[in-house]
């Protein structure tokens, strides 16, 4: 598996969750893939592209079939599709290799122009996923059954989860225990450990770090001077990162589709640039209700550890 790649042009998105009834990919994913193909950009699906755990087979068959029709054109155009494995498609770790047109990897280190960018789903930095893998998976499977009964049942579970987390925070405050560790701010609504992970990675010579997993889109300048981007999830307003010869653009997919590429506000990020003090943070408000609805579905921000 080769994780060091040189791609002058690459579009990155994540958390499409094909096959999950709660995440019906709208037309624009196919449009995004076609835009990439037309303009000579390789494509990276940064994890949870296919929702193996919470999928409906019939829905997955339709959605995957549509995507495959477009994907097979990429190698003919000399382009690649990188698929970084996430927690909802973890089984793809058994297929970590170059399959010709599609490269399945745990992460990629992209060299573009003079820049190095790490692209990784981010679930490996989720304390809940790492510390309680069985409980985490069980909750995702439970979510699948809830979705298959009715989405309202699933929403009920989300509400129960939120109540458990709030109760846990209340108990901690009563005991005088800090609710959250003193960690630097990241993208609002996202656990700070993801920004910390981005910091850890960026000091190894990366100008930018791109995660998914948390379903919270946004960008943050890191202490190293580089940038951390999160492309959120497609159940809400889909976001993406575009890379062009070392320049980076981050924003909603619909903006990328409706704006000529040369007219986008590209930026050059560099990790050796001095970080402003205090660190500037920009985050995107994806809508509180939508964010909450998406969180438990991915299991990405499950807070059951907040109890006690």
């Amino acid at each position, binding site marked *: 598996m080769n*994780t*060091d*790649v*040189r791609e002058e042009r690459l579009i990155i998105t994540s958390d499409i969750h094909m096959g999950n009834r709660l995440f019906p990919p709208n037309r624009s994913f196919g449009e995004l893939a076609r835009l990439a193909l037309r303009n000579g950009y390789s494509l990276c699906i940064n994890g949870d592209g296919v929702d193996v755990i919470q999928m409906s087979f019939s829905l997955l068959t339709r959605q995957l079939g549509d995507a495959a029709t477009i994907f097979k054109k990429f190698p003919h155009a000399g382009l690649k599709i990188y698929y970084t494995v996430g927690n909802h498609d973890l089984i793809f770790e058994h297929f970590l290799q170059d399959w010709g047109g599609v490269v399945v990897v*745990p*992460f990629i*280190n992209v*060299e573009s122009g003079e820049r*190095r960018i*790490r692209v*990784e789903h981010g679930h*490996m930095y989720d304390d809940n996923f790492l510390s309680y893998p069985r409980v985490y998976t069980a909750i995702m499977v439970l979510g699948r059954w809830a979705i298959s009964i009715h989405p309202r049942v699933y929403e009920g579970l989300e509400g129960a989860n939120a109540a458990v987390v709030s109760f846990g925070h209340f108990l901690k405050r009563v005991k005088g225990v800090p609710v959250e560790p*003193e*960690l*630097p*701010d990241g993208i609002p609504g996202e656990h700070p450990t993801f920004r*910390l*992970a981005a*910091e*850890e*990675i960026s*000091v*190894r*010579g*990366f100008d930018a770090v791109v995660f998914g997993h948390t379903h919270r889109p946004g960008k943050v300048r890191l*202490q*190293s001077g580089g940038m951390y981007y999160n492309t959120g999830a497609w159940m809400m307003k889909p976001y993406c990162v575009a890379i062009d010869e070392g320049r980076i653009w981050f924003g909603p997919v619909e903006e990328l589709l409706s704006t000529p590429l040369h007219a986008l506000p590209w930026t050059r990020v560099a*990790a*050796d640039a001095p970080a402003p003090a205090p*660190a500037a943070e920009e985050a995107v408000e994806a809508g509180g209700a939508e964010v909450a609805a998406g969180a438990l579905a991915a299991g990405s921000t499950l807070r059951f550890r907040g109890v006690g």
Partner: protein
Amino acid sequence: MKMPRFAEIEEYRDGDIIVRDGDEERHMYVIQHGKVAVTKDVGGREVTLAILERGAFFGEMALLESLPRTATVRALGYAKLLVIRPGSLLMRIRRDPTLALEMLQQMSRRIRAIDDRLVALLSNVGVPEQQAHEVKLFTTHTEYGGPRSADESAAAGAQQDGAAPNRAAAAPGKVPPPRAASDGAGVPG
């Protein structure tokens, strides 16, 4: 909210020596910015073994094996390096598990490159193909990362306790090719 300090960074100017052949230091480096040159004194002549670029590691063999440095590394232009000390390696891997995978990948590339060069070298001096292949099999299972016997581990431990390091045994054939932009280089630690 103040950022916790978690990275030890060192900066070097053009020509500064970062590690010196024979030094007893045990920490490794990751190139955050810039380039470095790995050189070795061969018969009184300084030979450049590799040019390492951003993201590459060096010094990890000294950290992992607790043996002296086997090459000199100096900065080419301004260089900024992340320092990883033996005591912090495991914690750093825990926080950034891809570091371990990338180290394995780079070292795997170096072993492959060294093996290929060794076979080519032996072929050039007229050693039959089969014997060259047998040498390659031998080297991949001893000094070049294969499992060690208890005797070999004990011998390495004796070296750490102050016995004179057997440089010849420690570094046979470790002449890595220069690193390409996307390839790891065999770099003596």
